[in-house]
Structure formats: structure tokens, C-alpha cells
């Protein structure tokens, strides 16, 4: 089926082919006949052997042979020599079949079946494997069989590791050998086997080993993939860490129900307007974790009993794991003193329970504390309940006046990130290794223009920056961002086929630059003010529009955002937004969203009221790349509340409507802009209005 040249059939070929076909067909019908009638004579077995040598993929013949073996064994009075010869005959047939097709699943499985009976020489198998490896070092059947034999014989991982060393030294371009090496080393490191501890010592040796491959053949991918794994082992923290929270440590939050607070200019990072009588408490980790609950996280406050707190993972799937977790604290209805700052303290990591997907426990205690001040509704404000339509026009945005200081609310920015004094500084070895690798890759790149080398350098520089900012959080200067942005631009030219990949990486670097210090962040913060109204809404908007962003990142720095403008970018997905629990106003117009299913993260934003998805590409693509990344009947992730059929008009195109239903049901939107998408027509709009009963404006028109 593979690799046969295309040629026009010649008459003599057709005749020869027909003759061969006749012979094979005869063998097959005889085999099936013998099989169905349980005939296991020597002649019958010969027929099956002939068939399998000609066509090892005829799987029923392998089944037949197993039955024949079982039959003949039960009739052989367990004479050890007979037993052995029965099995060695099977091995002979397998070997002959493998000569015909050394990738036949049936043949390899038959061999495993024979070996697992325990009557055959394992050493002979290792010799056989050696021959196969030399013929084709990438034959994964042989590698899998080798793993099976190693387990059967009890060959220790260290021995097998030496085998991979031998193979790699013979030929660096042996991805299979590198892969097996990574599997074996992982086991040895994890089990802290003698000679493979401490981890740092082993990694140093592995780095030296892989450097030889990189310098010998920099265009071969095998070494670079292995190097990436080593890098991951070097930079990734051993245990999950809390990296950000909202409210932030040391902040003073004001919870109010109205925007009007007597004209005080408040820090956008610390004031929160809530109609619900609750406010969220968000924990953001460096990786997805499970087990965040009221036993593993303690919240001390006058507002709620810790044991009553319910923590939810902010994941767009039925997963119990997420990077961001949220709980809600109730603001009690009792008349609280309006100027009192009530303290709240959060502790986690004291007890085991928060674990990453790979099973490591969050074991470093973290503590953060903040205060909450409650601003009650004045009766004047209570009357003016009207919700106003948001217009995302430039004229409505006014740059945040950084000079208006109000007891330095901006200072809180530095404390958005968790204090790390509880955490022993990342070992010097990690930082030194990164510096070494950076120097080495630079050296290599000075000799040869190598795409994957450039990509590795970009990754190394970003990892280095991340490590520096972790170890010294107040020196926020990202030393390498400009160089990394340039590297990705180079890569887009060097390797245009993968330019979208590099573009997304660039977006992440750009967002890092923007969020890395308060000056750059404030440049993107604006007041939103509807000029006709005399009352001042104190909405502060983070404007990240027109930045060619194709991806969202650095969400841990943006947990405080309530109003976000991401319009006029190149976003295809909004993964990450689900952690921004305070988000109430969101502009995603003029992007590249191509399906409703891409909006799944919004389902976790319970405060979202205003959404603009106009001028995207929804309905313009037959292929939906988010189909399995959202809850739907297709992936068995919807509950019994899936009452889609009640909403769909009779002649509707089912596809488009179910996606919109899956995303929007249960939303409390007051304003939605959807014009400029291929899917939007009057029928669809009326469907949406049914699904979203709280809507007041659609595409700028007030509903009645």
C-alpha cells in the first residue's frame, strides 16, 4: 500500500497478477475452511504457514494458529520437547512473515503470545531485535517488542539506557532511541535510582550528550526535541506554585454596588463594583491543579465561614483541574460600618491536597492578606438603576490620569504577584544552566543559520526572563523581550509555513512586555465615560486593541480587569479569559473568531453583561476547530438541562444554532453586538433573543 510506483498495467502483468491472486485465494479459502471446521493437521498448518508468509496481514490465520497450538498442546501429553518444538515452529512462521512485512501487527503479536507462554529463549529474541534495529532503527514494532522482552526478562532500566546510548552514538538522528532514553531516564529520576540522583547531575550529563548531536547535525530534529525536554526539566518548578491572586496581597478593596463614589479617582486594580452582594476570590497557579477546597485553603474573614466556601476550577471542560480557581465571599446584608476596612487572610499549602496533573503536591505554604471596605448603596443611587448602553468608540475613552494619586493606589501593582519570601530561591544551578545553554546556542547560530536553533534560543531567553522575574520580582525589566520578538520575526521569514505558530509566540511576548511594569500597563488603561451622562461611571478599561494579537496570555497579571477592549486584533481563540472573573464588559469585535464554540471560556464569566463580537468570521467556515473544546452532546459533556430542541425554529440549520445555544444559554447579557458575521440574519437574531432573555440591546438597537 505504500511506496509502490504507479505504472500502467501491461497485459502480461495482469495475467501474472491473476495467477498469483488465484493461488492466494485458494490458500485463504482452505484456511477459512480448516478454521471453521477446527482441522489442525500438519497439512492444514502448512497451508496457514504458506498463507501467512505470503500475506502476514491475514489475521484470521494467526488466530487459527493459536487455536491449533492450544489444540495440539492438549493432545501432546506435555512432553517438554514436543511443547518446545510446537512453539519454535510458531516463531519460525513469524520470522518468515516478518521478512515479508516487518511491520505486521499480527506477526509481532503472535510472537508476544508465544513468548508469554514461557517456553522460548528470551536471549534469542534480543538477538533478533538487534538485527531488526540495524535494518530499521525507527521500527516502533521492534521497540515495543523490546520493551516487552525487557519486562519479561527483568532487564533493568539502566541496561536499556546503555543500549540507547550505544545507538545514539552510532547515529544521532535516531528519534526513537532519544525517545526511549527520555522514558527510561524519567523512570530512573523519578524513582531516585542509585547513580541517578541528584537530578541536576544527570541533567548536566544529558546536556553534554545532546550538545554533540546538536553540533554534529543541527538540522536533524531528534536532538532538539530531546533538548527541549531537558529544558523543561530545568525550568519547571518541582511543585505547583501560586503565582497570582485577586484581590492581591496588601490591597484594599472597595466593594460597592454603584459606580458613583463622589468623584474619587480609584485605582483600577482595587475597586470592585458588584450588584450581587458577593465578590470573588481568585487563585492563579503556574500549572493546572486539583484539590483546591475549604480544607486545603483557609480564608479568615468576617464575611463568610471558611467551611461554607465552595471552590470551583475555572476550566472549560468537565475537568477537576485548572490553573485558576475561584470562590465567592458573601457581603452580609447587615449594616456594616462604611469606612471600616475588614481584613481577610488566605492560607494554603499547609496541608497536602493541592496537586498538579502529574501528581506533585503544592507543598510551600502561601499566605496573602487584604482588606475589604463596603460601600453601601445610597437611596439616591438605588433609584438610578438604569443600565446604559456601552459604546466602544475612541471618543468615549480617556487616558487614565496617572497624576491623580490617591494614597498611591498604583503601588498595589507590585503586589499583584504573590510574595515569594516563603519560597527558597530557585537553585543557582537552574539559572546557571540556562545561561550556559543560551551561550551555546548563540555559538551554534553564529556558525549556521538554523531554524530550530533560533526557536530554541527564543525559548531559552523567555525561560531565563521568567526565572529572573520569579527570583527577583521587583526588577521587572524584561531584558530579552526585544531580542525574542526579533527572533520570531526572523523565524517567520526563515520558516513561513509555521508563521502562525511564531506569531502567537510573539503575541505572548508582547503581552509580557505590556504587563511587566506599571508604566506600560497604565498606557493601556482608560476611563470609559459616556459623555451624555452627567453621572460618572468609573469603569476603567484595559485597551489592548490594534496590537495584532493572535493569542491571549499573561492573564495572571490581569485578574483585576473589569472592562477589556481586545478589538481589531487577530484572535481565533480566547483561551485564558475564563480566569478573569471580574470581567463585565468585553469587546472582541474585528477579530478572527470563526465559531461560537470559541467563546466557551465566557461561560465561566458570571459577571459578563456586555459583549461585542461583531465583525468576526462566525458562520464563514465549514470546519469548526473548537467543536471538542466546549461542552456538547458530541463529547458527552452536557447535563440534563440540555433543552436545545425547545429553542430551534423548524427549518433552522441545526449546526449553527446548536453552537450558539451551547454557548449562550444561561448568560445574563444586557448588550450584544453580533453584526458582520456570516451567520447573522433576522431569524438567527430572534433565536438569540429567545435564548438570552436579559438582553436590552442588540447591534445598537434597543429591544422592547
Amino acid at each position, binding site marked *: *500500500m*505504500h*511506496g509502490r510506483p*504507479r*505504472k500502467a498495467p501491461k497485459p502480461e502483468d*495482469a495475467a501474472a497478477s491473476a495467477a498469483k*491472486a488465484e493461488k*492466494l*485465494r485458494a490458500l*485463504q479459502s482452505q484456511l*477459512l475452511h480448516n*478454521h*471453521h471446521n477446527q482441522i489442525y493437521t500438519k497439512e492444514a498448518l502448512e497451508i496457514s504457514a504458506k498463507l501467512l508468509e505470503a*500475506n502476514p*496481514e491475514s*489475521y*484470521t490465520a494467526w*488466530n487459527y494458529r*493459536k487455536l491449533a497450538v492450544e489444540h495440539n498442546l492438549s493432545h501432546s501429553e506435555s512432553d517438554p520437547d514436543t511443547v518446545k518444538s510446537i512453539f519454535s515452529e510458531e516463531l519460525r512462521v513469524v520470522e518468515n512473515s516478518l521478512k515479508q512485512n516487518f511491520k505486521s501487527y499480527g506477526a509481532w*503479536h503472535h510472537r508476544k*503470545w508465544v513468548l508469554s507462554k514461557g517456553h522460548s529463549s528470551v536471549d534469542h529474541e534480543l538477538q533478533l531485535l538487534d538485527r531488526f534495529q540495524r535494518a530499521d532503527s*525507527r521500527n*516502533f514494532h521492534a*521497540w*515495543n517488542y523490546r*520493551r516487552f522482552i525487557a519486562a519479561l526478562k527483568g532487564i533493568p532500566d539502566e541496561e536499556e539506557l546503555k543500549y540507547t546510548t550505544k545507538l545514539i552514538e552510532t547515529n544521532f538522528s535516531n*528519534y*526513537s532511541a532519544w*525517545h526511549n532514553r527520555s*522514558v527510561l531516564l*524519567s523512570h530512573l529520576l523519578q524513582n531516585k535510582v542509585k547513580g541517578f540522583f541528584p537530578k541536576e547531575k544527570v541533567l548536566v550529563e544529558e546536556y553534554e550528550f545532546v550538545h554533540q548531536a546538536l553540533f554534529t547535525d543541527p538540522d536533524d*530534529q*531528534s536532538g532538539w*526535541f530531546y533538548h*527541549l525536554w531537558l529544558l523543561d526539566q530545568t525550568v519547571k518548578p518541582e511543585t505547583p506554585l501560586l503565582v497570582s491572586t485577586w484581590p492581591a496581597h496588601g490591597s484594599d478593596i472597595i466593594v460597592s454596588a454603584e459606580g458613583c463614589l463622589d468623584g474619587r479617582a480609584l485605582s483600577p486594580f482595587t475597586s470592585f463594583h458588584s450588584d450581587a452582594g458577593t465578590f470573588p476570590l481568585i487563585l492563579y497557579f503556574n500549572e*493546572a491543579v486539583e484539590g483546591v477546597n475549604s480544607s486545603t485553603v483557609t480564608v479568615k474573614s468576617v464575611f463568610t465561614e471558611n467551611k461554607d466556601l465552595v471552590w470551583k476550577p475555572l*476550566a472549560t*471542560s468537565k*475537568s477537576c483541574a485548572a490553573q485558576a480557581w475561584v470562590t465567592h465571599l458573601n457581603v452580609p446584608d447587615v449594616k456594616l460600618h462604611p469606612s471600616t476596612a475588614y481584613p481577610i487572610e488566605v492560607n494554603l499549602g499547609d496541608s497536602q491536597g493541592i496537586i498538579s*496533573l502529574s501528581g506533585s503536591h503544592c507543598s510551600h505554604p502561601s499566605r496573602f492578606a487584604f482588606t475589604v471596605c463596603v460601600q453601601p448603596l445610597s437611596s439616591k443611587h438605588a433609584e438610578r438603576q438604569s443600565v446604559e448602553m456601552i459604546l466602544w468608540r475612541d471618543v468615549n475613552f480617556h487616558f487614565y490620569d496617572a497624576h491623580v494619586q490617591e494614597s498611591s493606589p498604583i503601588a498595589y501593582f507590585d503586589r499583584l504577584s504573590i510574595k515569594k519570601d516563603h519560597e527558597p530561591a530557585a537553585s543557582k544551578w537552574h539559572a546557571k544552566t540556562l545561561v550556559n545553554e543560551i551561550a551555546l546556542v548563540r555559538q551554534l547560530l553564529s556558525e549556521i543559520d538554523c531554524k530550530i536553533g533560533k526557536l530554541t534560543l527564543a525559548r531559552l531567553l523567555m525561560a531565563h526572563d521568567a526565572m529572573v522575574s520569579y527570583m527577583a520580582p521587583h526588577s521587572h525589566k524584561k531584558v530579552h523581550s526585544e531580542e525574542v520578538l526579533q527572533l520570531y520575526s526572523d523565524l517567520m521569514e526563515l520558516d513561513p*509555513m*509555521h508563521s*502562525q*505558530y511564531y506569531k502567537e509566540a510573539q503575541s505572548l511576548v508582547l503581552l509580557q512586555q505590556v504587563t511587566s511594569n506599571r508604566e506600560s500597563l497604565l498606557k493601556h488603561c482608560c476611563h470609559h465615560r459616556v459623555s451624555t451622562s452627567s453621572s460618572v461611571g468609573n469603569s476603567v478599561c484595559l485597551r489592548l486593541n490594534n496590537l495584532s494579537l493572535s493569542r491571549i496570555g499573561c492573564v495572571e497579571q490581569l485578574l483585576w480587569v473589569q472592562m477589556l477592549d481586545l478589538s481589531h486584533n487577530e484572535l*481565533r*481563540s480566547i483561551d485564558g479569559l475564563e480566569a478573569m472573573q471580574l470581567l463585565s464588559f468585553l469587546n472582541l469585535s474585528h477579530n478572527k473568531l470563526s465559531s461560537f464554540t470559541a467563546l466557551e471560556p465566557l461561560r465561566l464569566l458570571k459577571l459578563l453583561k456586555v459583549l461585542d463580537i461583531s465583525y468576526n468570521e462566525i458562520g464563514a467556515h*465549514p*470546519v469548526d*476547530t473548537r*467543536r*471538542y*473544546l466546549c461542552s456538547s*452532546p*458530541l*463529547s*458527552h459533556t452536557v447535563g440534563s438541562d440540555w433543552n*436545545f*430542541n425547545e429553542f430551534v425554529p423548524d427549518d433552522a440549520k441545526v*449546526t449553527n444554532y*446548536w453552537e450558539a445555544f451551547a454557548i449562550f444559554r444561561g448568560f445574563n447579557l444586557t448588550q450584544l453586538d453580533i453584526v458582520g458575521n456570516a451567520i447573522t440574519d433576522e431569524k438567527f437574531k430572534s433565536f438569540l433573543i429567545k435564548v438570552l432573555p436579559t438582553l436590552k440591546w442588540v447591534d445598537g438597537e434597543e429591544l422592547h
Partner: protein
Amino acid sequence: MEGQIGDLEVEKHVQYILSVEKRKDNFESVVMEHLRMNGAYWGLTTLDLLGKLDMVDEDEIISWVMECQHESGGFGGNVGHDPHILYTLSAVQVLALFDKLNVLDIDKVSNYIAGLQNEDGSFSGDMWGEIDTRFSYIAICSLSLLQRLDKINVEKAVNYIVSCKNLDGGFGCTPGAESHAGQIFCCVSALALTGSLHHVDKDLLGWWLCERQVKSGALNGRPEKLPDVCYSWWVLSSLIMIDRAHWIDKEKLIKFILDCQDKENGGISDRPDDAVDVFHTYFGVAGLAHLEYPGLKAVDPAYALPVDVVNRIFFSR
């Protein structure tokens, strides 16, 4: 013409598939006799994607499919051949194409499949016990189509698949096995169908997968191997399910697939100027459908069936 993508020879491919269905006497056909059920799925799904499923005799095909069912409930690759999970899925898929799943004793087939799950969550291919994540996918896909997924232990099935995840983000056929695009497709699909894609590191795997695209625009199945049209399906479907398909150059891949056509006799081959077969014809056409080539029906990346067939099963009243 310079810059033009090129044409898909729809008529030629339809004729090629119809001829394969009828041709039974040359060597290639006899050698593939044991997997005719797979061949039926590849050929018929291709016809449906091209909008030409009505060109076959539905009743004849369905009665042949049912003749391949064994008393255990499983299906063999052809009449008289032993049952195996591989051919059971193809049988279910073929019946789904014709909207005739109701001819099945659904519980009988489902019990056969569910009975192949092992203690550790893995699946055997048949009673002889070969274990492979391909079979995990097949079990989950067929039981989903039959709406009997609750007959297996889904959590254990998912855990087994996750145990086959490698350090490069990909998946192999058994724990510790090297990442391979075919196995990745099976594992990612199985995770997709069970709402478990959070187990996939999408950036890491997405990069590994997009690096399958070589200079010619074609895709290979793992690093430093030769490209092949069938990877247009395995790699592309996987990328689509994790929403990273835009990380490859679609135009160049379309051009490669079109270059693999036999424009005179119909059919698509693994590489330009190689012999064609119905396997590569399906994967070439399905790959083009994923790339939004005009005139083709959309195909579901996890169920590997036209989207309208899948929607009919999950969204009809």
C-alpha cells in the same frame, strides 16, 4: 496556470472507487480481502464527502455488512473472517453513513465491544488480547455512535490513554511507546469524544504536529520520516481537535494532496506518482475537506464521518 491551486478530479475518483468495489480478482484485491470492511468504510465515506453516496447499491452493501457479523456480536473484515474491533467500527460507520444503525442489535454489538475492555482501562482488539490505543479509540468511537458509552468504564479508559502520553506531548500505542501521528489521532480523538482534552498539552503537541509539515508542504508521521498523504488526515484531524490547525501552511498541503492524484485513472496515492489505493484516496479527500477545499462536505475530525451524519445522530429530534 501560475498560482492556481489545481483541480480535484471528482469524477475520476468516484469511478475509481466504484471499480475497486467491483474488482475482486487481481492480486491487490485478494491481499486486502481480509480488511474489505475497512475498504468499504474508506470508499463509501469518500463518496459521501464528494456527494456521491447514491451511486452505490445501499441494500447490497448493508446485507454484506451484516453477513460479516459473528455470533459474538463483533464484525470480521469479510465474510467468514474472525471478529475484531477494527472491523466492528468500520461496520458501524458504514451503517451510520446510510442512516441504518437501526438494523443492528445495538446491545449485542455494544456488549462485544465493551467486553474487550481490560482491568487497566485498555482495550484488546479481540479475544487474543493485543492491546493498543487504536482499540481504545475504536471502542469509544463506536460506542459513542451507538450511544452506549456508559457500557464501559470511561474514567479508566481515559486514564489508560493518558498513561500513553509521552514527554514530547504525543501518544504511543502502549505506555512508553514512541509518539506517532496515527496513535496521536486515536488518543486525541478518544479524549475529545470523552470531554477529556484537558489532558493534552495543546501547545506542546500542536508544535510537534505542525513540525510534521516538511518543505514540500506534505506531512510526515514522526520526525525524520517520509511524508505521506494519509498523514493529511491523522495530523490534521489532531490539530483541528486541539485548535492548532492554523499552525501549518494549508495552501501548500492542498497542493501536495492534489499532486498525489492519478488524474487519468482516478484515486490518490501516498506520494506523487506512486500506485493509488482506496485508503489514501479517502485520507486525501478527507484531508482536503479539513482544508476547506470547495465542493466537499465537512468531516468530523473525531468520528471520521461527514458532519451531517454525526449531527443526525446527536442533534435530531
